[in-house]
């Protein structure tokens, strides 16, 4: 059947909706955005001014690096929680417990990011549940505001992106034959040497796919960051939003967007080179 499909050319016919999709909704808009970033907002002339404005401003640059560092930190934190969880799900738990844990990972994503963020706001604000609990057990004697702190943003981001880290790692660990782990142990390996020499190298592609995805999601997050971090969360996407919506300067916003994209693609590319992973292979 497949050979027939391939030969008759029906293959590409079936793919057309998907390819149009990608072309019209992904490629064209981003090329257009790229073009806009070189146009002056007022005069409509070609200019590098939008970029100059970024590199000339301490504030923009600081927000940018802050965003990048937090995104990297959050990605690492997510990986540190996701890897052991994925390992236990794939290699240790029975079929039933495995299904329950997987469900518990997916379930939070069924709930609107918006509702989730509001639920957290309720939990973390000065008069919220956590503050109340801490006072009740006597750790602190006054209300504490957990909202609008950097830590809260980090927690929100790790939570939001957990699925995208765990699933690729589970997929890669699933293909690891259990007997490889036993063999390493049989030959005298212990927990750490087996992890280092057998399990992590095998899960490498999954870790890479997950980390890339999570890093990108964190870098570009807007809802979680602004709701939990407040209007002054100093996240770079806020600057982009402000340029587009508040200042109606889409050219400046486009330039910021291009800067963010370029940086992230570059970082991912460097990481791939350093860890000697091939993205296509990792997929």
């Amino acid at each position, binding site marked *: 059947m497949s050979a027939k499909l391939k030969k008759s050319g029906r293959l590409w016919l079936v793919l057309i909706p998907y390819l149009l999709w990608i072309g019209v909704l992904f490629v064209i808009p981003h090329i257009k955005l790229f073009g806009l970033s070189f146009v002056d907002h007022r005069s409509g002339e070609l200019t590098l001014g939008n970029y100059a404005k970024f590199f000339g401003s301490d504030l923009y640059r600081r927000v940018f690096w802050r965003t990048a560092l937090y995104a990297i930190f959050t990605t690492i934190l997510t990986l540190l929680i996701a890897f052991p969880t994925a390992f236990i799900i794939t290699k240790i738990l029975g079929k039933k417990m495995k299904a329950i844990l997987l469900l518990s990972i997916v379930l939070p994503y069924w709930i609107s990011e918006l509702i989730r963020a509001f639920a957290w706001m309720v939990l973390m604000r000065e008069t919220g549940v956590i503050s109340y609990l801490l006072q009740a057990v006597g750790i602190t004697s006054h209300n504490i505001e957990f909202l609008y702190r950097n830590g809260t943003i980090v927690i929100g981001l790790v939570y939001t992106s957990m699925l995208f880290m765990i699933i690729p790692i589970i997929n890669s660990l699933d293909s690891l*034959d259990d007997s490889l782990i*036993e*063999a390493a142990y049989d030959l005298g*390996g212990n927990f750490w040497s087996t992890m280092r*020499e057998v399990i992590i*190298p095998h899960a490498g592609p999954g870790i890479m796919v997950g980390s890339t995805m999570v890093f990108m999601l964190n870098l570009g997050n807007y809802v979680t960051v602004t709701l939990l971090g407040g209007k002054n969360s100093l996240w770079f996407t806020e600057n982009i939003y402000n340029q587009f919506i508040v200042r109606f300067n889409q050219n400046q916003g486009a330039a910021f967007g291009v800067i963010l994209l370029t940086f992230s693609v570059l970082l991912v590319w460097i990481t791939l080179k350093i860890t000697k992973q091939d993205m296509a292979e990792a997929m």
Partner: protein
Amino acid sequence: MTQEIDVSVVNLTKRWGNLTAVNNVSFDVPKGSFFSVLGPSASGKTTVLRMIAGFETPTAGDMFIGGQRINDVPANKRPCNLVFQRLALFPMMNVLDNVTFGLRRRGGISKAEMERMANDVLARVDLKGLNKRKISQLSGGQQQRVALARSLVLDPTVLLLDEPLSALDLKLRQDMKLELKRLQARMGTTFMYITHDQTIALAMSDTVAVINFGKLEQVASPDILYREPATHFVASFVGENNRLNHGRVVKLIDDQTCQVEIGGLLSVARIGEELAPGDDIDLFIRPEMIHLQLGKQASGIVGQIKEINFDGAHSLVVVQLTESAIPLSINVKFQHTEQAPAIAVNDTVTLSWGRAAANAFRHIEPPTEGKE
């Protein structure tokens, strides 16, 4: 005998909830011998191996390697190594790194020394010069040898093998079978080999332990196992055998031989377990020990050829017995020597066999699924 014992298992039992996978198994593996554990799938043989290797914890019983109790020694400290069924070579490492993996875990060995040891063992398994190859670049037989080398380089007291030949294709399996036995003889390492393939167990082993439903049926040398099976199961599982159900013991001839009757026909047979006249028995007759003559002869049992299944070296001839009261058919392994008579389907033939060809055991109902 004052033979040194390398592996000793005493009253070993493993239960998973209600299921008893291994039931009170005891045996000794003499030093330097090739010892096989033979059983059908799900007989518990792999569980025995995994308990010795340290991947399962026994419910009861003790295990000793080189005289030392190993029940509480973790798997990575036991003086035994396992060759896995699907080999479990590390695909992310080359041949050399696979072989030195265990040495690196030991510490205190210089890199040059490790490489020397690895080269040494690789040469012994005929893999000289393939150090830098990736695992995926090796053929099935070469991977097999890397798996052996990886364990042998650690000089284990006993090498455990979990049917590593079953992944190979037929021709290669035949070759590796002999090669493995030669390697064992050369290295002098004690081998403990788990298999469901009785031809492998018989050909390679000094001693075979037959296990079924978690219980040990017989521990003996291959030829004893084949000629003097101790149980009904061993008689039916080890080697090809004709099984004639519902015979009857007529009389005991001596303490090893009896006369049996089946469908009105008489035969002598070895007594497999304690029997008394009148006992309901199953009779097992080895197909290759049956003498086939053309035509109706003075002595012997008369039948007619129903099928001839050619098999190269011999043919499996299916003979329907014509003078029995119940329908009985017997498979005869017919050797194509140059003196052998020419036979054809529907020929009348006479079969005869000696006492050693037939074994009698108390009747056991065959599994109801019949054809399985």
